[in-house]
């Protein structure tokens, strides 16, 4: 048959909307830049330079991408299972809290300690998501609202902890003690910040791919996410799948926070996350809910982030522009698709805001 042709067609159908929406987003943000008084061409050039201009900047791209990889994959899993996890931000913070707390207190050799604290971060994030999952399962509370509420609670929790119980011993700044040297994720190169966490994230992406497309559980999650009625009739435990997906998603987001503390900041403080939990949504959608696509999308946004500072320096454009690009990407995706991918009609689980 036209096997190659049909393959190409499928790839085009997958990539097309993403590329098109990227284009639209770039054009739209170019307009915004112009309106804000800047030069779009210079801004984007500075962006590219800042991201890819040197080995150091490439390493920075990796550093900025890492949390997006974890959270992006987290969203891929959740959305594939039909669960709207908007709580990545909060789950991430819980993971960071766990890492900052245990990492500065635990006296263990790295081969034992690191896996332990990373696991703790994942569990913290998963536990935070479990709150929403239980509310959904037992009390039919929409996960959209509950995860968002938990985000804000987590924010305040961080604020409380860094000003209080977990404040550094020196008592000077509202931040936690530093993670002990043994429990810091090692760098990959001596002179750059790129760290092991990046590789772990790639590994997680690969595992997610296996989970979703090669395991029974992944199959069940996807079926239940696309058509819970048919899934249930087939004997698939749809509610349990949704629960697991939400908790797993939270765990990965928690891992994002934990890795970031362990490898980059070594401490937790307020304003820790520049909105990774929300960018993750754009990453997942741009990556068409495929782990591989999410990796590419995460790299895109990571590059955007890495380049934004030089864009600000060179072209005077605020780095907050990145938010606009993200938003435009999502809008463009959704418009280009005509809503077919994320349609609310047909058997898709409607977000029940109850």
């Amino acid at each position, binding site marked *: *048959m036209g096997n190659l042709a049909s393959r190409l067609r499928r790839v085009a159908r997958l990539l097309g909307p993403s590329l098109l929406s990227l284009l639209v987003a770039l054009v739209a943000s170019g307009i915004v830049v112009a309106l804000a008084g800047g030069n779009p061409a210079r801004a984007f050039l500075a962006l590219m330079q800042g991201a890819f201009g040197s080995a150091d900047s490439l390493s920075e791209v990796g550093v900025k991408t890492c949390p997006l990889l974890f959270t992006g994959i987290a969203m891929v899993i959740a959305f594939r299972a039909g669960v709207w996890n908007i709580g990545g931000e909060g789950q991430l913070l819980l993971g960071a809290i766990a890492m900052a707390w245990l990492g500065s207190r635990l006296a263990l050799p790295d081969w034992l300690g690191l896996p332990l604290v990373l696991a703790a971060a994942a569990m913290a994030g998963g536990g935070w998501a479990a709150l929403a999952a239980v509310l959904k399962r037992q009390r039919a509370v929409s996960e959209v609202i509950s995860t968002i509420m938990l985000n804000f609670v987590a924010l305040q929790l961080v604020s409380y902890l860094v000003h209080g119980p977990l404040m550094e011993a020196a008592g000077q700044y509202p931040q936690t003690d530093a993670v002990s040297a043994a429990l810091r994720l090692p760098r990959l190169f001596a002179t750059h910040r790129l760290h092991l966490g990046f590789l772990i994230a790639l590994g997680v992406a690969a595992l997610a791919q296996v989970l979703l497309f090669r*395991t029974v559980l992944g199959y*069940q999650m996807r079926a239940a996410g696309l058509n819970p009625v048919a*899934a249930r009739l087939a004997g698939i435990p749809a509610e349990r799948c949704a629960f697991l997906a939400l908790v797993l998603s939270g765990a990965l987001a928690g891992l994002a926070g934990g890795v970031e503390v362990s490898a980059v900041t070594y401490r937790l403080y307020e304003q820790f996350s520049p909105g990774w939990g929300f960018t993750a949504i754009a990453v997942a959608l741009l990556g068409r809910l495929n782990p591989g696509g999410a990796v590419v999308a995460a790299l895109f946004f990571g590059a955007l982030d890495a380049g934004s500072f030089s864009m600000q320096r060179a072209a005077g454009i605020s780095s907050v522009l990145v938010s606009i690009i993200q938003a435009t990407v999502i809008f463009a995706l959704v418009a280009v698709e005509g809503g077919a991918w994320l349609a609310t009609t047909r*058997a898709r689980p409607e977000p029940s805001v109850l």
Partner: protein
Amino acid sequence: MPNDPAAIPAPPPNAGQALLSVRGLRRNFGAVAALAGVDLDFYPGEIHAILGENGAGKSTLMNAIYGLVRLDGGAILVDGRPVHFGGPLDARQAGIGMVHQEFALFEVLTVSENLALALSPAREWRLRLDRVAAAAGALAAEIGLDLGDLDARVETLPVGTRQRLEILKALSGQTRILILDEPTAVLTPVETAQLFRMLVRLRARGGTVLFITHKLREALEVADRVTVMRHGRVVRTVRAAEASERALAEAMVGTEPVPAAAPRPRQPRGAPLLRIEELSVVDERAIRAVDALSLEVRSGEIVGIAGVDGNGQWELFQVLAGLRRPTAGSIHLAGTLLTRFSPEDMIQAGASTIPPDRQRQGLVLEMTVAENLILNCALLARLASGPFLPRAASRSFAGALVQRYVIRTDGLDVPAATLSGGNQQRLVVARALSTDPQLLVAFNPTRGLDFAATGAVHRACSQACERGAALLLISTDLDEILGLSDRVAVLYRGKLSPSLESPLPAERLGALMAGVHEDAGG
């Protein structure tokens, strides 16, 4: 020729020019001709019944007249002038109102609120429920309808009242033609009598009533003329006074040979695989959907359950699919008493289902053909290797099924949505049979399928029975029941009639289904 010349309708006594005429109406859904050239005339001041089985084209005809269905050919004339309806609002303006089987009501709103838009004056912005109520009351009195408490919320109303509400809505405005789609399907005998009295009053006012039904007796009771449809054509139109039940039943079911699966070899029946005793299901509205149902299906046997939709079939199916726990009664499957009711338990116990709505219940349209072919917990368990689902095993399994059941698809990796209805159903059937079930429960397995696909599904089911499975066939399609079953019972208001062995008398069956000889009570 669409019509037999002998069947050209004799105009009723007081007919002037036809109020509504249709000429050569055609409508195809894919390869199926839902309307294959229909010519009819309707006159003012008559009650006209359109009689036929499911799939005969009655609803499509009426929906076309009401502007809900596009036509592929033909013309509609009102008062002799051709009209084109872009939608129901156009039909309403031409004086045609329709009440569907599925009501378009707002559950949480009151009766008055449901009528408010239809009965409020044109430029009004205020909601004057008192005025609406007055207008509704006047209209209701004129026609002889009892709407009951106008401040009651629709969700509290019994079906009969809801239907009267729909009828009132349809009659608001200058409606000259009222179309009713299977109105008595959901009514008790008392409500049916009330409805008929109202229709007679309408006729006395000079209105025309078009009445879709498959119940012969009622058609003869209330209609002036009866048109029988079959396979998208008009078979004949007769005056009710001159018609006989037997002739009409034959016209409905047809003396053509039933599309045959190969004649099933009479096998010695094995042990009862399914034994249902005194099964009762009380639904959320405290209605006894299934009432003390007892049934036995043996190995190798096909038991057909006939009946009009809405008499408990869906609840029975839900129980056997594990989606619903019975309120009372017991079910033995392959000798074991069932105590747990979940789809997984039923599948593990050896049951397999073919649900009535393949797209919503049987398939995940966005997933590939291969993925859909394994959408079953027993299959998943069989194909799994630890926690993994090896691609190779799944694909070869799926590939074998595609070949065996001749599922026409562009490969295993295309979304199931790309398949035609017939092939989608083949997929569902293939999957259901591939678990080697002891009991197969099929609900309208050939709905919307063409002749070839229907035959394929029937053949597959027959073969499964030859291998020892028991098949419980729930269907609203008489042809299917007749062609396939060894024994047939009729479900009416949740109660099951005693079963009839084949050879099966067609008209007796039709009568039971229509509630003529109500042995089943109710």
